[in-house]
Structures are given as structure tokens and as C-alpha cells.
């Protein structure tokens, strides 16, 4: 029998009087990959933060390798050889790659000066193992999200860890980067390093993990070997009920053309993109990372300037608009980068939810109808099953990662837009919530709005869209109707232009 490297007993944790972990007992086998799954707000990140020394448990004890372990700070966790890749990026965008890697333990010379040369050399050598190819002097603010996440992972592994915690590490990785991460995990496992892996992508969990634990509402409901369970079992354990369908369906009709763009060029990534969108239609945009799909959406919404091409909206030219004009015209854009662009972190949930719709709530004198606002906020929280303790006092930054996303989505949908642009709407969201989001998308379409969905998960697009257009290297590589959806042909189109990252 193998020994346990990490044992938790009766861990409890409250935030502002609300208990979010109700006495967790869990043991992690040495050298295993242990999956941790659960709905948004189940307490996964909180539990990991307790192990990582970021939060103190209110009650309970922990053992590492049979010895009592009482971390007072993240430093103590490092000393116990526990590395932690957080759910959100913890890099300093104003510093260089090298500085970020070494910031906790900068190499010093005789005069206590930072040895930049040595640090940069080590960075290159070190990152080579991760196949990350960046200049160590580059400031992090100039790097793509995927590269940043790779650096964050590399950084966590710089200490010779015995236990590595990955909290949703793949949310902004490209396919290639993700494969790379999985190779790293396999490598670590081969060196008998223990891994805790949190993800909402159950396929990945099954692919990687030996054991799987399920958290629901702050309690551990099950721990079992991966081969003894199935995807469906996991889901019902997570949500406490059975999910019948993955994708909802509604009856709807597709009407006249609403939005049309022709030969759009914008920035370095969008070269020649055309599409047309009809009333009641759900149009998917598929493309690999760097194909220009996100940039095309930004241009449509008016966030980026067009350098060529035309947009027609409801039959009228709509080309040099600002985001404000787009919103007024009934277009909504849920961005991919929700943390930076989508939320007012230090503001309460309700304020965040009402942000977009606020002007419409104002009466004649510009006074906001608070009651109505409250009702709308409640409806949104209910519809998306957002886990919020108190919508008036809880700040957006105190929500779990997935619930922050639901708030961003909720605030746009409340405005009942005619054109809803969604960039990766279900990233980091649990299976149950995915279903809710798909339902909302379908309902918007049924009410004769048009929906544009950008996603890197092809299955998701095939499940909800009426039509998919494929982008590759800034151009349209093809278009497929629902009846002809087929994974391979879509992938081929996407690859046609080559993945130029």
C-alpha cells in the first residue's frame, strides 16, 4: 500500500461569518495525480489556498509526509515543497519574465545587487525545459495570455516541489501549450511528484488523474479511483442531481439578416473576414489561437479600429462606431478576458450586474429605479445559479472564479441585446452552469436576437450553433451548416492556414 503524502482532517473555513468549507477530510496518495472537481463556488480554490498557506483554516489539521503541517504563509508551503499554480495569474506585468520567475528569491551579488545577467541566463535555461521561447528581458505585459500562463506554471515549479497544485491551469492555454503541460505533468509523475489537479474539463481529469475527489457546497462527497467512475457519475455527484442533456434545444425560426461584415481587416491579426448574422441565429466562430477570432469580435464591437472592409447593421452602414454606440445599437460583447475587462473587482455584485443596464433603469429625472434593479439582479443570479452570499455587500473579487464569469455574462444578458457576442462563454464554468449558459443562449435566439459565439471547444459549438464559420490566419477558411457538422472537416479548415502563434 502506498503512503499518503498529504492528509487533511476536519478543515473548516469561513469568510465573513459564512462557512464555505465544512470539515474536509482528504488524503492524497504519494506520487498520484489527484483530480478535484466540483461546481463553481464549491470551495476547491479555497481548500487549495488553505493547503498553500494563503488562507488559514479556522479548524482542522494537516499532515505532510506524516508530520504536522501548519503553514502561516505561502513561504511555509514552499518550505514544505508544495508548489501552487493559482487559478488566476499572479504575474507582475510591469516586470520582466526573468524578474517574475525569481522575484521571491532574486540572485544577489556581493553588494546585495540583483544579478540580472545570471538571472536572465538561468531563465533561458529553465524555460527551455518548458519549451517556452521568450526573451527573459521582455516585460510580461507584452506577452499573450497563453505564454503568461506557461510562465506562471514554470514559476511554481522552480522550487523542487513534492506536491504541485494546479488550479484550473488550462483556461487560457492553446492546444499546443496544453499538450506541453500534460507532458510536464507526466514527467513530474514519473519523478514521483504528487499532483492535485482542479479542472472543469472532465475529459482532462479522466485523462490525467489516478484518483478523483468531488466537492459539493464545501463538503467532500466522494473520493474514488478514476477507473471506478464515469463522467455521468461525476456530474451527478457534483451537482447532486442527474443532468439529462448536455445541450438544450429549443424551437426557433431564423429570420432576416441583421449584421453583415465584408472583407474586414483590423490590426495585425484580422486580414479579410466576412460573415453575416441573421435574426434568431446562433453562429459559431471557430479558429485556433492566433487565428484572429477574438480580434474580429473586438473590431465588430468597435473596440479596435477597422483598417478595411465594411459592416452593415440592420441594413445601414455601421463602420466607425465606438463601443458605446454599439451598446446603444443593441450589441453586447462578453470578452474573453473577464478579470481585466469585465468586472469592477472592488464593487459589490449587484453594482456589477446592473452596470450595463443602468441607463435603462433611470426614470425621467435620471433617478435609478432601485427596486427594479434589485429584482433584475436577483433574476440574473437565479437564472445563472450564481453563488453569491449577499449581492449588496459581497465584492466581485470575493466570488469564486467561475461565479465572476457568471456575473459578467449576467450583466450583458440583462440588457437583452439584439446581437450578443460571446467570447469563450463557458471557460472556467462548471458543467451545470454550462447548461444554464447554453439555455440562455438558446432563449436569446428564440426571442429573435442573434448570437455570435467564439469558442475553442469545437464540441460546444457543434452542440449549440446553427452554423459555424471557421477562421484561419485572419481569413475565413470555411462555413458549415448544422446538418453537415463534422469534427474533422472543421479542424482541417482551421488548420488550412497553419497555426501561426
Amino acid at each position, binding site marked *: 500500500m502506498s503512503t499518503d503524502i498529504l492528509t487533511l482532517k476536519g478543515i473548516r473555513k469561513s469568510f465573513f461569518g459564512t462557512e464555505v468549507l465544512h470539515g474536509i477530510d482528504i488524503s492524497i496518495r504519494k506520487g498520484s495525480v489527484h483530480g478535484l472537481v466540483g461546481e463553481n463556488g464549491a470551495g476547491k480554490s479555497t481548500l487549495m489556498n488553505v493547503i498553500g498557506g494563503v488562507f488559514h483554516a479556522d479548524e482542522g489539521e494537516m499532515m505532510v509526509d506524516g508530520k504536522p503541517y501548519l503553514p502561516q504563509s505561502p513561504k511555509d508551503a514552499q518550505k514544505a515543497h508544495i508548489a501552487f499554480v493559482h487559478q488566476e495569474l499572479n504575474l507582475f506585468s510591469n*516586470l520582466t519574465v526573468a524578474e517574475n520567475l525569481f522575484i521571491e528569491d532574486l540572485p544577489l551579488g556581493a553588494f546585495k545587487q*540583483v544579478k540580472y545577467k545570471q538571472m536572465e541566463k538561468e531563465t533561458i535555461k529553465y524555460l527551455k525545459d518548458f519549451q517556452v521561447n521568450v526573451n527573459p528581458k521582455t516585460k510580461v505585459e507584452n506577452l499573450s495570455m497563453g505564454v503568461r500562463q506557461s510562465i506562471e506554471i514554470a514559476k511554481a515549479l522552480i522550487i523542487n516541489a513534492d506536491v504541485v497544485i494546479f488550479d484550473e491551469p488550462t483556461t487560457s492555454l492553446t492546444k499546443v501549450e496544453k499538450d506541453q503541460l500534460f507532458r510536464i505533468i507526466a514527467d513530474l509523475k514519473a519523478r514521483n511528484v504528487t499532483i492535485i489537479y482542479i479542472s472543469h474539463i472532465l475529459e482532462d481529469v479522466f485523462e490525467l488523474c489516478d484518483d478523483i475527489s468531488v466537492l459539493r457546497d464545501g463538503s467532500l462527497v466522494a473520493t474514488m479511483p478514476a477507473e471506478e467512475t464515469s463522467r455521468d457519475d461525476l456530474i451527478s455527484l457534483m451537482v447532486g442531481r442527474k443532468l439529462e442533456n448536455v445541450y438544450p434545444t429549443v424551437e426557433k425560426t431564423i429570420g432576416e439578416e441583421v449584421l453583415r461584415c465584408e472583407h474586414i481587416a483590423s490590426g495585425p491579426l484580422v486580414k479579410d473576414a466576412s460573415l453575416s448574422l441573421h435574426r434568431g441565429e446562433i453562429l459559431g466562430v471557430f479558429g485556433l489561437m492566433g487565428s484572429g477570432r477574438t480580434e474580429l469580435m473586438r473590431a465588430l464591437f468597435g473596440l479596435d479600429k477597422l483598417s478595411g472592409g465594411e459592416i452593415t447593421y440592420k441594413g445601414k452602414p455601421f463602420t466607425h462606431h465606438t463601443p458605446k454606440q454599439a451598446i446603444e445599437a443593441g450589441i453586447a460583447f462578453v470578452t474573453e478576458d473577464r478579470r481585466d475587462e469585465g468586472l469592477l473587482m472592488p464593487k459589490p455584485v449587484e453594482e456589477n450586474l446592473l452596470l450595463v443596464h443602468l441607463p435603462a433603469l433611470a426614470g425621467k429625472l435620471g433617478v435609478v429605479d432601485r427596486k427594479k434593479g434589485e429584482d433584475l439582479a436577483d433574476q440574473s443570479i437565479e437564472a445563472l445559479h450564481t453563488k453569491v452570499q449577499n449581492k449588496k455587500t459581497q465584492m466581485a473579487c470575493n466570488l469564486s472564479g467561475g461565479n465572476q464569469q457568471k456575473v459578467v455574462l449576467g450583466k450583458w444578458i440583462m440588457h437583452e441585446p439584439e446581437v450578443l457576442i460571446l467570447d469563450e462563454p463557458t471557460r472556467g464554468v462548471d458543467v451545470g452552469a454550462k447548461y444554464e449558459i447554453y439555455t440562455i443562449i438558446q432563449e436569446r435566439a428564440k426571442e429573435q436576437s442573434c448570437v455570435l459565439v467564439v469558442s475553442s471547444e469545437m464540441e460546444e459549438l457543434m452542440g449549440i450553433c446553427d452554423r459555424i464559420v471557421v477562421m484561419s490566419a485572419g481569413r475565413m477558411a470555411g462555413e458549415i451548416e448544422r446538418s453537415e457538422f463534422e469534427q474533422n472537416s472543421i479542424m482541417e479548415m482551421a488548420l488550412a492556414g497553419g497555426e501561426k502563434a
Partner: protein
Amino acid sequence: MNEKTAKRFNLSWSRLYEYGVYVIFLLMVIVFAFSNPHFFTVKNAILIVEQSSPLMLGVCGMAFVLMLGGIDISAGANMYLSAVTSALVMQKFAAANGPGGPAVYLIGISTALLVGAAIGLVNGCFIVKFKMVPFIMTLAMTSVLTGIGLILTKAELLPVRASGFQPSSIRVGPVSMVVVIVLIFTVVFHYLLKYTVYGRQLTAQGNNEEAARKLGIRTERNAIIAYVICGAMAGFGGVLSAGQVGALSSNFAKGNEFDIIPAAVLGGISLFGGKGSILPGAVIGIVLVNTITNGLTMMAANPYVYTIVRGVIIFIAVMLDSINYKGELR
């Protein structure tokens, strides 16, 4: 979204004002030069450098606080109170041991450093431990410090030179010892910010405090130290400036924070934290601000015009910072 749109805006306009600050600066120099023949001379240039020096210390300290995303409005009042206490101590000492000699310098400067650091410590502790807004905390501090200074001096003119404290009379080549000391400190602080663990972690924390905490960086301690450095340097600058002026009026150093902060910001240190450096930006910034003051004085402009100009400088500095200016100066 805001930051990104700002960047984009910046890209398209950057050409236009990349050298904008220099152009304005140059124009002003030309106007000054034509209106007074004594302006564009070596002697006057040295004078400007001498006048900038004590404030430069303030800028060095302020750089640390700004790096954090904080601000210290009490820098001017700190200069005043530190100079007053130091002058009083030197007066006592000179009365007992006779004026002059290295001991007076030692005692004067250490008193100012200590008082300044203590003020910074109070600022830092309240801001960090009680999460007070830096602007309001240091604004309140300004009022308290000025009041104490006025009580100590009974609002009368306090002589400094009589104790034998005349740092500007010790010459090193064409400049005074003050300039040399300040240059050394500037280099040291630049080094501290760019090449030490403390400086780098402070820069990191100014960018993403949450992340810094999660990495186990001692954010609270670092922040308090930054305010202490800022306070100590203001105190040091205060006593050197007092030595230059020779006597302390109740208006001494009043509003100096509004030269120090814009100079740092014009020099590329962002009010939003995490950006910029002392060399060369902040040095150029303070010289620039002082050149304008000097020029206006020489033009014998209406003294109230200076207030307006100061306002305009603050406005330009903050505006450039807000739209993420990356022009030549930075």
C-alpha cells in the same frame, strides 16, 4: 478595457506629442532667454541645479511611495517641520558649544532625518494598518505638521546660518556640497529601487499587491518602509534647503509637494504604481520644474502667475500619466 483603449489612443497620437514636453520646455527657455540676458548663462544654470537639489531628495523618496501606488502630500510640511526641529536643535547646540564645526552638521542632518523618518513611519503605519487612503492621511498630516512647526517657531523667523550650518558655502568645484550629496543619494536610491530585492519587490507589489501577498512577499512591511524613506528624504531635503535659505519663515517649503510629485510624474513615475525610475526621468523632471520657476522669477512676472504655472505643470504631468504617455522623457 480602459487601460487598453488608452494605449490604443496613445499609439495613434504618440508621434504628435512624443517630444511634446521637450518642445514646450524649449519654447519656455527661449522666451526666458530673450526676456532676461542673465537667464541663459552658466551661472544661472548652476543656480537652478543648486535650487533643484534639496527637492531632488524629496523626489527620490516620493519615487518609492509612488511605486507602491501611494502618495505623500505631507512632503512639503515634513520639510518644514524637520527643518524647524533641526534648526532649533542646532541653535541649542551652537549656544552650548559655539557655532560651526562638523558636529553641527552631523547633529542638524541626523535630527532632520530622524524627524522626517518618524513622520513617514506614522504615515505608513496608518495607511497600511488602518487601510487609510494615502491622500487623505497625508493631507491630514500636512495640517498637523504645519501647526506643530508654527507653535515651535511662534511663527517667527528662525535663523539657521547663525548656528554655523551653511552647507551651500562648502564648494566642490563649481557647485556646492549640497549638489554633490544629492547626486550621490540619487544614484544610491536609483540603485536601491532597480537592483535590490526590496526595490524589485516594491515594484512588483505596486503592480499587483494581491499576487505579491500570495507569493509571501512582505507587502505591509515594504509599504511602511517606503513611507519612512519618503519621510526621511523630505526631512533631509528640508534641512539642506534651510541651509541654502539661511532662515526659516512660516512659508518655508510650503507646497513643495506640488513640485516634487509632478516632477516625479513628469519623469515617468506613474501615479498608478509600479512604473518608472529615478534616473534619468525624475532628475530631468525636477530640473524642468525649477527652470520654469527660475525663469518666471527672472522675468519678474507677477508672483501669482507662478501659482497658475504650477497648476498647469501638475495638470500636464497627471494628464500624460493618465493617457499612459511613453514619450522621450520616460
